[in-house]
């Protein structure tokens, strides 16, 4: 199986057109889209001001202190403006009209947090992210209270430090946006590599030699698919390294988050390769016609090429959109949850695809 993997990689690297299409092209695209479209898109370089109304109903004294501390910490950041309100309903109306950006309600004991979102996508995400951070923190506080109340009294200000850590400190540019969407695009494009991988062997007729060799078909299938992985990893790595070194695109602030991101994209690529292979085994339509248009349409409506092209009620059901969201969550806010969901979903899909593919490969009679 190792020989097959080595062979695949060699073959791939020797093909000069591959080098261009898979390595140079995406990096160039990030640069071009990032610089040219940045002006058109008038991106928020920073989040801007975020206005939040909040209400407090029946929470415990300790929670009350924590909430107040938390809000105070954020207001120190200068771009968050909090107003307490008793009339939640009209605040919600205000948020719906775009007068404010969100309404947050802290209520009950144990505390529950309700967020009513406004109209701005980016700001909504910011609010969600911050409140998520707070919830995490609050959980931690709860545990500390259960075990060692004193610690809390000794360290009254730690939560604002905690939030600061996850601060939106980097000035984000459109380059960052395209660095993510292009990477997503490349990962999804791996489906093409998967779909044509057996086609290549068939065209070169080498599939015959592979099939008469005393090596099991399932091994052959996995060897082929795993053989495509190194080149995909290389692609992602090159795009990440080059776009950040050459053009100064930002990914996540922390190495760990970047590794997480890399891992997520690896898993997605692997899934797409497996899906592609299954396509290649079962469907006779040329993937150039059968897959590419679908992929392009999906990317188009997922904001891959411009963040303005997002359609309410459609975009969020597109896998590419979800992956991009997960990647933004990870890089901008350091939130791992969506990325983890993506990874798990991908692993399940690729497992299914591999089982399906191995079965198909076992059964399929070469003509």
């Amino acid at each position: 199986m190792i020989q097959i993997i080595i062979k695949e990689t060699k073959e791939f690297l020797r093909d000069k057109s591959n080098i261009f299409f898979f390595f140079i092209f995406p990096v160039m695209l990030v640069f071009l889209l990032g610089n040219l479209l940045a002006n058109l898109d008038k991106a928020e370089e920073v989040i801007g001001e975020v206005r939040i109304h909040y209400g407090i109903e029946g929470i415990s004294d300790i929670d009350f202190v924590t909430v107040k501390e938390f809000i105070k910490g954020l207001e120190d950041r200068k771009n968050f403006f909090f107003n307490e309100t008793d009339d939640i309903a009209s605040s919600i109306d205000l948020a719906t009209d775009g007068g404010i950006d969100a309404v947050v309600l802290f209520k009950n004991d144990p505390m529950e947090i309700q967020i009513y979102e406004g109209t701005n996508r980016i700001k909504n995400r910011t609010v969600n992210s911050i409140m998520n951070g707070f919830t995490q923190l609050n959980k931690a506080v709860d545990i500390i209270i259960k075990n060692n109340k004193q610690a809390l009294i000794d360290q009254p200000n730690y939560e604002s430090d905690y939030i600061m850590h996850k601060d939106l400190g980097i000035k984000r540019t459109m380059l960052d946006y395209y660095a993510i969407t292009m990477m997503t695009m490349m990962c999804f494009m791996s489906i093409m590599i998967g779909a044509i991988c057996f086609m290549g062997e068939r065209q070169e007729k080498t599939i015959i030699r592979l099939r008469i060799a005393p090596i099991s078909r399932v091994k052959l299938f996995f060897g082929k698919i795993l053989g495509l992985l190194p080149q995909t990893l290389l692609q992602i790595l090159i795009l990440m390294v080059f776009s950040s070194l050459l053009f100064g695109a930002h990914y996540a602030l922390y190495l760990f988050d970047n590794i997480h991101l890399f891992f997520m994209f690896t898993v997605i690529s692997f899934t797409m390769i497996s899906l592609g292979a299954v396509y290649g085994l079962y469907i006779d339509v040329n993937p150039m016609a059968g897959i590419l248009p679908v992929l392009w349409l999906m990317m188009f409506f997922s904001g891959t090429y411009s963040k303005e092209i997002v359609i309410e009620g459609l975009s969020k059901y597109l896998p590419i959109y979800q992956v991009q969201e997960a990647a933004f969550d990870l890089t901008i806010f350091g939130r791992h949850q969506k990325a983890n969901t993506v990874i798990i979903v991908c692993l399940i899909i690729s497992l299914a695809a591999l089982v399906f593919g191995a079965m198909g490969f076992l059964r399929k009679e070469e003509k």
Partner: protein
Amino acid sequence: MSYVAVENLVKKYGDITAVDHLSFTVSKGEIFGLLGPNGAGKSTTLNIITTLTDFDKGKVTVDGLDIREHKAEIKRLIGMVPQDIAIYDHLNALENVKFFASLYGYGKSDLTRNAMEALEFVGLSDKIKVKPKQMSGGMRRRLNIACGIAHKPKLIVLDEPTVGVDAQSREHILNSIRLLRDRGATVIYTSHYMQEVEQICDSIAIIDKGQLIACGTETELVSMVTDVQTVFIKTKIPINFEKETFEKKIKLMPGVKGISEEDSVIKLDISVEQNNIGHIIQEFINFGLPIISIKSELPSLDTLFLTLTGRELR
């Protein structure tokens, strides 16, 4: 001793019967030629023997093993040279051969040695770093062969390995195939070039429309259509030559069907079956006729095919 046995083999593709109750055996250590026109079912038969394609009816054994039950073992014995060139364009000659041999599980050093041997064998040892794209058609054919034999198979199956190559490359390929046999391999070889098959095959099966038409050594096959072989013996007629006595004597020998003389060349029609040439030569010597050259002419397999099927081969 039969190494490959095909019994009542049937393979259908939908309505087309590609192989129709075909039976033949291949002896160990021989070159067996499978001869037939386009679409005769040669490739299909080979694909079945090499376990690539399943079949509908019949039985095939290789080295005494049933190919349905012992697929894995049989795969190890076989080296295939497919009709269509099957090599990777982006790998050089050595890498190609090494990769395919590696599928048979050799260690690294064995691998390189075997691959080099195979390349040397087909006369490409000075081209190991060359990629197929930069090779001529004949060289690619030879590389195609090298890829099929580097793992030292006991049974080598070649499907029209000489299609589209020049005379020199063809000679080289044919010689290599003989050499493979001399080293102990059993070879199955398909072609629709008559001369080739006549030249190198120890026994031959002629198939058409999936059916066996004739099978045997070249002589056996020819004797099916005609028993007569023409032999031309060039000699030098002495002055005191008793032509009539000589001709009478020869004519009376068993198997001789006719004799005539022209320009010191004696033309004999003799029976293929009762091949009596030794005794005839003896008479020449008795009559003081020196033998300058002997040329024998069998009807070609072309004629044979024409007679057996009523159709031209190509």
